[in-house]
């Protein structure tokens, strides 16, 4: 897959919640190559390894991309210190994105916490045909709530403590829907591993196509170093390692061995 490396300016910086930042970055080159579900590798000061961050938006007309990230450690901490008009060294777009069905298909988008942003381009594409279920620890952690209104998605917001939206897990809501007889053409999910595992189980149980976005520690980000292994089923019943940066980050949920 074609990708580029370059220095691109931040156009807008927003603070979505205490530790979550939203950068809009001007890059015609990356925007014109990118697909929903792909990611970029960003160089951060002091750190020998780049940081993988998903594309939260790809705008071809306006030549920009968007990333939304949470401060987890030193690297994302330094990244958060960049300001509008600072330049970022970015490698991308990388990996395999989501399979795009015709936009009139019915889909579910399941997002947990900082796993929500990569669903934004899908929400825009499927519009009213997408049911979006997003979950967060509590009201303070909620991000991108308005985003899905814009696209006329059905949107169900969950929080672990019920301080906003429904109290409970996204997978509880999904389970109720599927048990209730809903049969979407695809479930897309991005979020913490236990959530993805449960979504994969539900998809298997109700026999629905499902794509999940995986994470793994990376070095190269382009399939050269074999660092980002992810255990997968082979067609012949054995298992082997796929690589999140090249074969993923989006996998069919049936492929992944948790």
């Amino acid at each position, binding site marked *: 897959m*074609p*990708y*580029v*490396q370059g220095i691109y300016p931040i156009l807008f910086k927003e603070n979505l919640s205490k530790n979550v930042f939203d950068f809009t970055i001007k890059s015609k080159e990356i925007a014109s190559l990118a697909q929903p579900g792909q990611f970029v590798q960003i*160089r951060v000061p002091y*750190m*020998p*390894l*780049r940081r993988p961050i998903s594309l939260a938006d790809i705008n071809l007309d306006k030549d920009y991309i968007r990333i939304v990230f949470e401060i987890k450690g030193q*690297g994302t901490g330094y990244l958060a210190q960049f300001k509008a008009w600072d330049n970022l*060294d970015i*490698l991308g777009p990388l990996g395999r994105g989501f399979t795009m069905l015709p936009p009139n298909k019915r889909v579910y988008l399941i997002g947990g916490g900082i796993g929500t942003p990569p669903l934004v381009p899908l929400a825009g594409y499927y519009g009213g045909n997408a049911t979006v279920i997003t979950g967060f620890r509590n009201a303070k952690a909620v991000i991108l709530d308005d985003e899905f209104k814009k696209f006329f998605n059905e949107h169900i917001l969950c929080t672990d403590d019920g301080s906003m939206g429904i109290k409970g897990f996204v997978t509880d809501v999904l389970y109720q829907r599927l048990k209730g007889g809903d049969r979407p053409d695809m479930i897309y999910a991005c979020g913490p591993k236990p959530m993805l595992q449960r979504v994969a189980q539900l998809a298997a149980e109700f026999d629905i196509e499902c794509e999940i976005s995986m994470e*793994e*520690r*990376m*070095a*190269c*980000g*382009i*399939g*050269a*170093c*074999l*660092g*980002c*292994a*992810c*255990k997968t089923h082979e067609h012949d019943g054995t298992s*082997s*390692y796929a690589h999140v940066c*090249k074969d993923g980050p989006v996998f069919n949920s049936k492929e992944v061995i948790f």
Partner: protein
Amino acid sequence: MAHMRVKIAGVELNNPVIVASGCAGFGREYEELFPLSRLGGISVKGMTLHPKAGNPPPRIAETPSGMLNSVGLENPGVDHFIEHELPYLSQKGTTVIANVAGSTPEDCVAIVRKLDPTNVDMIELNISCPNVKQGGAAFGTNCQSAAEVTKAVRQATSKPLMVKLSPNVTSISEIAKAVEAEGADALSLVNTFLGMRIDVESKRPILHNNVGGLSGPAIFPIALRMVWEVYNAVKVPIIGMGGIYDSIYAIEMMMAGASAVQVGAAIFTDPLTPVYIVDRVNQWLDDHGIHNVSELTGTVKPW
């Protein structure tokens, strides 16, 4: 423009900057960013006789000015390399170095026999991988076993044979001498240092393999010292590596005794590093009125 070509064990390279084994796969991925012909060579991912799955993830951990890896020699096996990778790679106008990482001397011999009739330019016998239970560093941290596997492989190939040394030893020059005595045409050093990181929240080592190989700028001063030590102990040419991330580091490595250098982890920070180094070394030579890059080798003047 200075003359950048170098000759090592009879093989002429475009320039002295080679991408290190394991850091650029079989060359396809980075072609997106620069033509491989800009490189002096590529040392491909270490290969075994049969395909190898490698270690469970996580395989990567970050450290101050460095990184750990425990990939564990994941590779598709020598046959796949010869059939599916080499035909493509050998047309790219760069020197192809086959990194051989059998788990027994017999395996290494078998791999090398398969490579012998191909158009691979050079063999790099990896006796120093810290991430596998058998072979690897188990060969390379002991003079006798290092000599044995070198001897066996030497007899199995007419290709130029380079042996890649482990830095996890008390005296790397002893190992170097043992390997030279068995007919190595060149030496490459260093492979990674065995290291560890712990995730204090889960109390788990970050790497699923618990330990892994440290590389990157952090190790440069130790690697440089080892290259200098080995240069003073052997006559065969040396390819130096370990933490090179800029032209100055490449020049130091050559002054310490290296005839060429390899660049590994730095490519993950900036994928264009090897190409920048070629250009900046060339510029430096021009600025200093040096006509031939080979004139740098071994020119350090100890006090």
